[in-house]
């Protein structure tokens, strides 16, 4: 399954062989015409020098030259579009593939990845692979082609002795290019790292600007920044200095070659081996040899970068699906009991189990409340039902079969989940509510928003339901976000509603009215309500009190009050607290 960068590029070339083959032909045409021009100019010069050229012949010769110029122009435009166009397409395909891959991964995968790294894969690394498929292939092919053609024209068209003599500096130039390009790569890598450090410092200080300001630490931050900016400038300078080194290498090599050519050439002209026109074209060829010398190092660098990028990209692209979706039982019996038995789970790498020995049955039409201190495992329980993780012990069944036996999409359609952190996407409010039900009618969306007690808030925005939210949209209060997320879940109209402390930022009064709406609208369907605020679960048919991942107590609200344990104490506390918020 694992492919190398070379394999990937080769496969892509086979797939896009028309683009690559036509580009190669066009490049060959460009190369042939490019070496023909100096030869042609040399012939014209000779004819001019010997006064053999008629006005008409000169006209024809120059027309040929101009025609060749135009031909080169069109061929160059052509190969660029074909070759780079194909490479861009590879980049596009890889990016879409990466995204699709990511949609099939579960939370376990995301725990092991930083989102910054994943983002870098989608941009910088795919760019590097794209460069390897476009720029590097071009440089490799065109560099070799130009080298061979120019050498052929020099030896066959002018003189092999002159060629040998004038080419003396070129191998040295190639060696120097190779060394420089490696140094450029190394130093620009360091420059990038310094830039990254600078970025991190700016991020840290601007995020914590309030603290900095209060402590009068801005001066200190500016000093730190200055030091980092100096490092970055220094690293950039070193990279820049190596890049500038190309200049003298070309200059020295070309000057040497030109003087050698003129010195040795004049001996040949003197003795009549070559003409002055041939010497002119020879000196034009020298300039054309710079590119192949450069291309050699360039190809290596691009391939190295591409390979490094691909080695990061490939594991993600070929990672297996994060959640096993091989269940074939269908349809999921929406009215069947949900039975959880002996459920236990430990997060990978955690010392202690987050959940153990959890059991309950939730029949259709019933509501289960789950309460407990922070870290008691409430959210994890919901996540196991959503199949974000696989339990280590016990099982959860819906109807006759364990939940893994059903296709993932059916299970997800049967559950509407409102997580603790309400997540809104950069889209309109209406689109955010209709996330789980594409093409929901406007009145359905509004109805869901009314149930979640957020309709009036939305109407108050100038653009109403069309108001954009997210990074570039309006700023919503925590309570508004939660209620929109709730409306989203209500619109999904699933058999099981799971609220994970989903009303924590909503005031008690609104919470009470939302819960009343829910009881009304979801009569006959199931809900699991996780909450810190006990008033949210007081009406539930059954309440689990979790402590350190185990069920510490269970029963109805009245049972638990009578037992006078954690639940009863917490209840009294919250009642008093609520009295402070009221009046």
């Amino acid at each position, binding site marked *: 399954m694992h492919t190398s960068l070379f394999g990937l590029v080769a496969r892509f070339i086979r797939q896009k062989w028309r683009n690559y083959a036509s580009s190669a032909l066009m490049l060959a045409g460009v190369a042939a015409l490019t070496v023909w021009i100096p030869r042609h*100019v040399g012939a014209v010069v000779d004819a001019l020098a010997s006064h053999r050229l008629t006005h008409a012949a000169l006209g024809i010769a120059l027309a040929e030259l101009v025609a060749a110029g135009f031909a080169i122009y069109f061929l160059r435009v052509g190969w660029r579009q074909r070759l780079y166009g194909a490479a861009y397409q590879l980049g596009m395909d890889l990016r879409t593939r990466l995204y699709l891959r990511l949609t099939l991964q579960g939370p376990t995968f995301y725990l092991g990845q930083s989102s910054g790294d994943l983002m870098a894969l989608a941009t910088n690394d795919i760019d590097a692979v794209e460069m390897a498929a476009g720029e590097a292939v071009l440089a490799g092919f065109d560099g070799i082609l130009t080298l061979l053609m120019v050498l052929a024209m020099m030896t066959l068209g002018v003189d092999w002795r002159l060629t040998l003599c004038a080419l003396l500096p070129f191998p040295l130039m190639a060696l120097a290019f190779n060394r420089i390009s490696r140094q450029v790569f190394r130093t620009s890598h360091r420059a990038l790292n310094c830039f990254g450090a600078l970025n991190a410092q700016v991020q840290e200080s601007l995020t914590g600007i309030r603290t900095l300001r209060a*402590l009068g630490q801005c001066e200190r931050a500016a000093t730190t920044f200055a030091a980092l900016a100096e490092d970055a400038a220094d690293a950039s300078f070193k990279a820049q200095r190596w890049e500038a080194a190309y200049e003298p290498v070309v200059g020295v090599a070309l000057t040497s070659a030109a003087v050698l050519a003129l010195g040795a050439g004049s001996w040949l002209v003197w003795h009549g081996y070559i003409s002055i026109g041939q010497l002119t074209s020879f000196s034009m060829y020298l300039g054309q040899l710079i590119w192949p010398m450069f291309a050699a190092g360039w190809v290596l660098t691009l391939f190295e970068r591409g390979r490094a990028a691909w080695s990061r990209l490939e594991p993600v692209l070929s990672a297996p699906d994060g959640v096993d979706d091989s269940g074939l039982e269908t349809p999921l019996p929406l009215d069947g009991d949900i039975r959880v038995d002996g459920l236990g789970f430990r997060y990978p790498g955690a010392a202690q189990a987050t959940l153990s020995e959890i059991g309950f049955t939730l029949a259709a039409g019933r509501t289960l409340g789950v309460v407990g201190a922070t870290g008691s495992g409430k959210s994890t329980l919901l996540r196991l039902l959503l199949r974000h993780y696989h339990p280590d012990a016990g099982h959860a069944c819906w109807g006759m079969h364990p939940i893994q036996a059903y296709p993932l999409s059916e299970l997800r359609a049967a559950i509407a989940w409102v997580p603790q952190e309400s997540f809104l996407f950069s889209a309109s409010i209406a689109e955010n509510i209709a996330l789980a039900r594409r093409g929901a009618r406007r009145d359905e969306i509004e109805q869901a928003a009314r149930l979640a007690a957020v309709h009036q808030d939305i109407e108050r925005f100038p653009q109403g339901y069309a108001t954009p939210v997210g990074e570039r949209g309006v700023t919503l209060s925590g309570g508004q976000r939660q209620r929109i997320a709730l409306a989203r879940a209500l619109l999904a109209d699933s058999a099981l509603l799971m609220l994970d402390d989903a009303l924590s930022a909503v005031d008690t009064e609104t919470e009470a009215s939302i819960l009343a709406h829910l009881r009304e609208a979801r009569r006959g369907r199931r809900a699991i309500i996780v909450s810190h605020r006990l008033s949210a679960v007081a009406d539930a048919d059954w309440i689990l009190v979790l402590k350190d991942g185990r069920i510490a107590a269970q029963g109805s609200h009245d049972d638990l009050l009578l037992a006078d344990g954690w639940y009863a104490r917490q209840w*009294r506390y919250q009642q008093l607290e609520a009295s402070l918020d009221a009046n």
Partner: protein
Amino acid sequence: MQTDTRSALRLLGHAAAPERRGLIASLAWLILAALLEVVGPVLSKRYIDSYLLPRHSDFAAMALLLGVALCSGYAASGLRYLQLVRLAAIAMRSVRRLREQVYRHVLGLPLAYFDRAITGQLISRVTNDTEAAKTLYVQVLFVLLDSSIVLTGALGAMAWLDWSLMLIVLPLFPAVLAIVYGYQRLSAPAVSRTRELRSDINARMAESIAGMSVLQASNAETRFAEQFAATNRDHYRSRRVELAANAWLLRPALDLLNVLLLAGVLYRFGLRHLSGLEIGVLYAFVSYIARVVEPLIQITMQFGQLQQAIIASARLNTLLQEPSAPAPSAAATIGAGRISLSGLGFAYHAGPAVLNGIDLEIPAGGFVGIVGHTGSGKSTLLSLLLRFYSPQSGHIEFDGVDINAIAETAFRRDVGLVAQEPFLLSASVLENIDMGRGLARETIERAARAAGLDEVVAALPEGYATELGADGARLSGGQRQLLAFARALAGEPRILLLDEATSHIDTETEQKVQLALAALHGKVTLVAIAHRLATIRSADTIIVLKRGRIVERGTHEQLLALEGGVYQRLYQLQQLEEPLASR
């Protein structure tokens, strides 16, 4: 666009101003290098016309000519390299200055600006946009300067050899201008669209990664993948447009001009029925044409980056125009530390009022406790006292001076803050207390003792020199707050603000803080927001905030006696809390 360009260039010119001497020296050396470079073909012409073609065998003179050509070529290359390195250094220093200026400016912006700004964009201003400005320097200094000097030199040499022939080269300039204009028209919209789509791709990627579990739970991941693919395709199309503009109008078009120019020169020669002596002029002209076209190509190749750099610099300019807070003219100082608030009212960005009609007098050395439920406006009041925001109505005066008239350094020196979530450096205890203020060891230890931190320090392996690790990982929540307390005390402030400074502290440490506060009482003006009412028990006055207004005020005993009052109920609540916390 015009004014953008001008202001961007002015900004960059300003940052490079201290380098004027170096720039002029570089310019002079580059001109010399260009002269040395254009001398080469003139020497070749002399060599061909005076010795080679007339078969005038003066070998010493010929060798001398070749030797001079070689040396002048080498010298030109060497000089160019040295100047490019010098210019790179100038560019890096200028960017560093620009960066520091922008960063300092951002640090000094009013906090209200940060509420509106997207931090990511602001970070990008400081780092990416200055990086783009760097490109501008490097390109402007390197390429434009160097290329235009070589261009001028080559034109001069051509004119000197044969000025009527040189005239053929002149139409090149309007032609290049036309091409560049066309390129700008075609490519600029595509370039900015590609950039937009690219950041769109990034945003979608980041958002989807962050909200993947919600997407999956809503069965919406396939739909989002389709949307992502659509954006990706748009990005590809936009890049193809860019590619087409590049292909039709940049390198291939300029190479075409090169050939046309060659044909023009040859044609003029053909018309003249030249004598054999002039063949050398032709040889030199052929060499020069490459030297005219290449710099022009180099210059035009930079336009794309130039455009981006100018846009980035214009954005920087806009940012630098943002007025900073406070007015730099503020020069007053803080006296004994008397605080008076009158009719204070505040709302965040046209939102509902957070504070309303707050009147409060605190004598120098007084101690005021602020109590209230979440959202009552406590933290906002503290933010106003810290001068993070300006009140919409009413005044804050320290010792009868409006706080906006107090100089920033004096303000931060004399107003101390103990924040709820202390910000710790990954450095030693000593450095964390000192915070770059250069305090005497004696002062630091006295502050640590006063804050009750000395016992904590004594228990650390290396005492004050102990490294605390990233974000003070070695310390517990309570110890971190003690350290923040010591840090504030070390500055010997006149006014000390405490923001829930005892929320994470155990009862024993809490008593230390209370003792410390009692010791400060009368010497330093204290304003404390307290979650634990015990912290402010000994305050001269306690105010109770509710929905932005003062609803109760008095001493601890007076407020406790208010039957059914908010303070009384808060007190009862805390009595209940103790057993819950120690569960």
